[in-house]
C-alpha cells in the first residue's frame, strides 16, 4: 500500500482548504466541476493505491481516473457497501477511528474509517454550513433526545451523529428527553429550567423527526407545555418513512412544532444527511429546498438508466464530497429518492443545486411465486 504522492496530497488539500474557507453557498453550480474534479481525481488515485478492492471496483468498471472529466462520471459507491466492505482509502496506520453507524433501522452497521484530516474537514464543513443558517455565535443547544444517545458506550447512529455534529455551536447543551424503563419521556426538570432561564437567549435544537413527533410533541401537548423563545431554530432529520406512514406532512410538522416552541414554521429546518457522509448536511432553506454546499454535489439518477435526471424528475440521490481522504466518500449512491428542484436560482439567494427528498426506496418487494431457493 502506498500513500498518495505528497505533492498531490498537498495540492488537493490546498484546493479543499480554499473551498472550506468560502461561504458554502456562494459558488454557482457551473464552477463545481472545475473546483471539485481535481480533488476527486487525486482522492480516487489514493483510493486505488491503498485499497485493492476499490482498485477492483474501478478496474472492473474500466475507470481511468485521469480520464474522468465530469462529476457524473465519478463511479458511485452504493451506500450498502459500507456495511459489507472496508472502504478505507488511506494507509491503515493513518486511521484514527472507525465510526460504526447502525443507521436508523439497526442491522449490520456501516464502517466509516476516519483519519485526522478527514475528521477535521468534516468539522470545518459542518461549521460553515451551520453558520450559514445560524450565524457564528454560540447558542443554547437543545437536544430532543436522551443523554445516553451521545454516550461513547452506545453504538454510533444517525441520532448520535446529529447530536455530535450539531453541537459545534453549543454554548450549553440540554437534553429534553430522558430514558425511563426503556421508554423516552420528557425530562421535565430540564425543560422547566430551560423555560425559566433561556427564553431570551438564541436557541437552536436538534432532534430526530419521528421522535420529535411521536414522543416529544405528543407528551408536551399532553402536559400543556409551551416554550416562548425569542430566537429559535430547530434542525430535524430522519424518519420520514414513518412520518409518511402516520400521514404527517412536512408543513403540518413544521407548523405544529413551531407553535410548541413559539417559533416561526420557517425556522423548523428539515435536513438530509447520513453517517457515511458526516460533515455535510443538506438543510432546508425557508423555501423548503435542500441546498448543496460548495464542497459537495448532489446528482439525482434515474433508477433504471442511472443517468442524471433533469429538474423535476425523481430519482436516486447520489451525494458527492471532497472531505474524506480516508474512505470512499467521493460519490455515494443512497437508497433514497429525491428530485432536483433547480440550480443557482433559489429565491433564498443560495447558489448551487437545490433538491427535495421524496422517500426511501421501497424495499419490501412483491416476490410472488419467484422466490428464494431456501426451504
Amino acid at each position, binding site marked *: 500500500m502506498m500513500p498518495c504522492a505528497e505533492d498531490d496530497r498537498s495540492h488537493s488539500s490546498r484546493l479543499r482548504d480554499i473551498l472550506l474557507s468560502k461561504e458554502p453557498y456562494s459558488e454557482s453550480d457551473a464552477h463545481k466541476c472545475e473546483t471539485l474534479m481535481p480533488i476527486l481525481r487525486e482522492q480516487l488515485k489514493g483510493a486505488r493505491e491503498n485499497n485493492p478492492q476499490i482498485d*477492483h471496483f474501478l478496474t*472492473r468498471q474500466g475507470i481511468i481516473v485521469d480520464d474522468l472529466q465530469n462529476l457524473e462520471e465519478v463511479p458511485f459507491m452504493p451506500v450498502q457497501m459500507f456495511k459489507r466492505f472496508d472502504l478505507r482509502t488511506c494507509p491503515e496506520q493513518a486511521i484514527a477511528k472507525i465510526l460504526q453507524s447502525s443507521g436508523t433501522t439497526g442491522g449490520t452497521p456501516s464502517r466509516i474509517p476516519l483519519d485526522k484530516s478527514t475528521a477535521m474537514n468534516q468539522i470545518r464543513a459542518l461549521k460553515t454550513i451551520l453558520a450559514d443558517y445560524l450565524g457564528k455565535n454560540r447558542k443554547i443547544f437543545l437536544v430532543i433526545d436522551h443523554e445516553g444517545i451521545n454516550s461513547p458506550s452506545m453504538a454510533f447512529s444517525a441520532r448520535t451523529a446529529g447530536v455530535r455534529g450539531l453541537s459545534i455551536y453549543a454554548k450549553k447543551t440540554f437534553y429534553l428527553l430522558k430514558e425511563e424503563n426503556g421508554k423516552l419521556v420528557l425530562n421535565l426538570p430540564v425543560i422547566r429550567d430551560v423555560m425559566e432561564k433561556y427564553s431570551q437567549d438564541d436557541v437552536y435544537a436538534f432532534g430526530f423527526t419521528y421522535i420529535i413527533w411521536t414522543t416529544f410533541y405528543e407528551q408536551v401537548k399532553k402536559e400543556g407545555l409551551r416554550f416562548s423563545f425569542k430566537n429559535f431554530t430547530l434542525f430535524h432529520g430522519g424518519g420520514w418513512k414513518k412520518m409518511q406512514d402516520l400521514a404527517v406532512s412536512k408543513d403540518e410538522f413544521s407548523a405544529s412544532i413551531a407553535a410548541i416552541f413559539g417559533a416561526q414554521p420557517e425556522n423548523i429546518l428539515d435536513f438530509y444527511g447520513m453517517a457515511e457522509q458526516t460533515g455535510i448536511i443538506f438543510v432546508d432553506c425557508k423555501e423548503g429546498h435542500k441546498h448543496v454546499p460548495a464542497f459537495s454535489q448532489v446528482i439525482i439518477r434515474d433508477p433504471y*438508466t442511472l443517468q442524471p435526471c433533469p429538474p423535476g424528475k425523481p430519482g436516486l440521490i447520489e451525494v458527492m464530497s471532497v472531505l474524506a481522504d480516508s474512505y470512499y466518500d467521493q460519490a455515494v449512491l443512497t*437508497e433514497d429518492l429525491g428530485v432536483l428542484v433547480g440550480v443557482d436560482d433559489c429565491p433564498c439567494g443560495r447558489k448551487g443545486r437545490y433538491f427535495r427528498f421524496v422517500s426511501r*426506496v421501497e424495499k419490501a418487494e412483491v416476490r*410472488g411465486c419467484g*422466490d428464494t431457493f431456501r426451504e
Partner: protein
Amino acid sequence: MITCHLVDGKFEKQSCTDFDGIVTSINRNREVLTALPVDAIIKILDGLGKRVLKNPEINTVPGVSFISLWLRRENLDKICQINYSDKRYIDGFGKTGQNFLMMAQPRGIVCQWIAANMPTLGFFSVVQAILSKNGSIVKMPEEYVPLISSILRELPAISVEYEGKTYSGKTILDAIALVSFEGRTQETSEQFSLAADCRIIFGGSEAVRIISRLPCRDHCETVIFGPKYSFAVFDREFIASEGFRKSLDLVAKDVAVFNQMACSSPHVLFLEKSRYSVETIASWLKESFEKMPPVLRHQPISSGMSARIINARAEYQLADGRNCIAPQDLGWTILMNQEPCLEEPVQGKCIFLKEIGSADEVIPLVNHKIQAISIGILDPVKRESFARQATYRGADRIVIPGTIHDFTLPWDGIMTLNRLVRWVILKHS
C-alpha cells in the same frame, strides 16, 4: 371493501361488501358452462387465442403471444388428455374397463389468489378452471385487471359450431368474476375463502402460509403454487456443440421474460469447465442480452429492484474472485463467481454464472423449492440420469433453453385440471 371488475359477463367496476351476489351469479352461470361439450369449449378458446393476437391493444404485451400459442386446440387437447386420460370424462360418464362408469365433475367455484409478479398468470389460472368446467372468482392485483379484461372481452364475440349446435364464448365469460380487495383485510379474505369449493393459491411463502390458513369448507380442495426457484446447467459437450452460442440467446430470453420474477425464471447458469472460460461465455451472453428486442431489453423496474441490482453489481465489482459485466443502465447484469451454490434472486435480469467440474455437482443443491432446471446435456443417458436424480430431490421440470416458461402441465408437480374435478362413479346394475 371488494371491487368487482367483472361479473355476469359485465365489465363494470362496482363495490360490494360481500361475495354473496357474485357467488349466486357464478353458481347460476357455471351450470350453463357445464352443459357445454369440452370440445366446444376448446374451440372457443382456440378462437380466443387467434383474436388476442389480432388485438393491437394487447398483442405487444409480453406473454400475450404465448397465450395465443397455448390456446391452440392441439395444445388444449393435450392438456385435457394428460389430466383426464380421456377428455370425454369431463362431458359425461365413460367406460373404465371396470364394473363402473366414471366422470370428472367440476368442483364448483374455484377462488383464485393471483400473485403480483406475472401479468398473465391470472389468465392461465382461469383457463384451467374453464377446462374443468368450474366457475371462477379471481382475486387479481388491480394493475393486471385491464390486461386480463382485454383478453376476456373478446369472448362474447366468439361463437363456434359443434355437432350441429352453436356455442358462444359468452357462456364461458359469464362463469368468471374478477375481483380485487386488500388481502390484509381478514374478514373479506375469510369470506372469499369460504366461498370456494376449490382454492388456487399463487404466491410467495408468506402469502401462501396466510391464505392456506384461512377457514374453508370441509370439502374444499386447495391447490398451491408456492414460491419456487429455477436455474440452468450446461455440460461441456453441450458448450462445445455447434448450437451453444444460439442457446445463450435462449437463456437470455428465459432470463428476460417476466423480468426474472417468475418461479420459472432462471437465476444461475452453471457451466461445466470447458474449452471456453466463464468470461468468454459471459461476453457471448452479453451479446445475447444486447440484441434482445427493446420490450425485453428494457423493462420497468421498481426502485427497490433497482437498489438490489446496484448493490449486487457493486459487491461483485469490489470483491476478490468475483466479476461483473453490465451495461450502463440496469437492463441486464452478469455476475460471476466460482462458488458452487445457488444465489438469492436479485431479479431484473441478473444472472449468476458459475463454473463447475461436473453437472452432477448441482444435484445436491436441488430441493423442493426448485421448479425448473434448464439443461444443456447432449448425451441422452446422462440427461436422464441427471433428470431422475434432480427430480427425486425436488425439482419439478427439467427443460431445455428457451422453453423454461412454457406453461405445460404438470406444473409444480401438479396436474391442475385433475385437482379441479371430482372423479365420480356410476356402478353398473
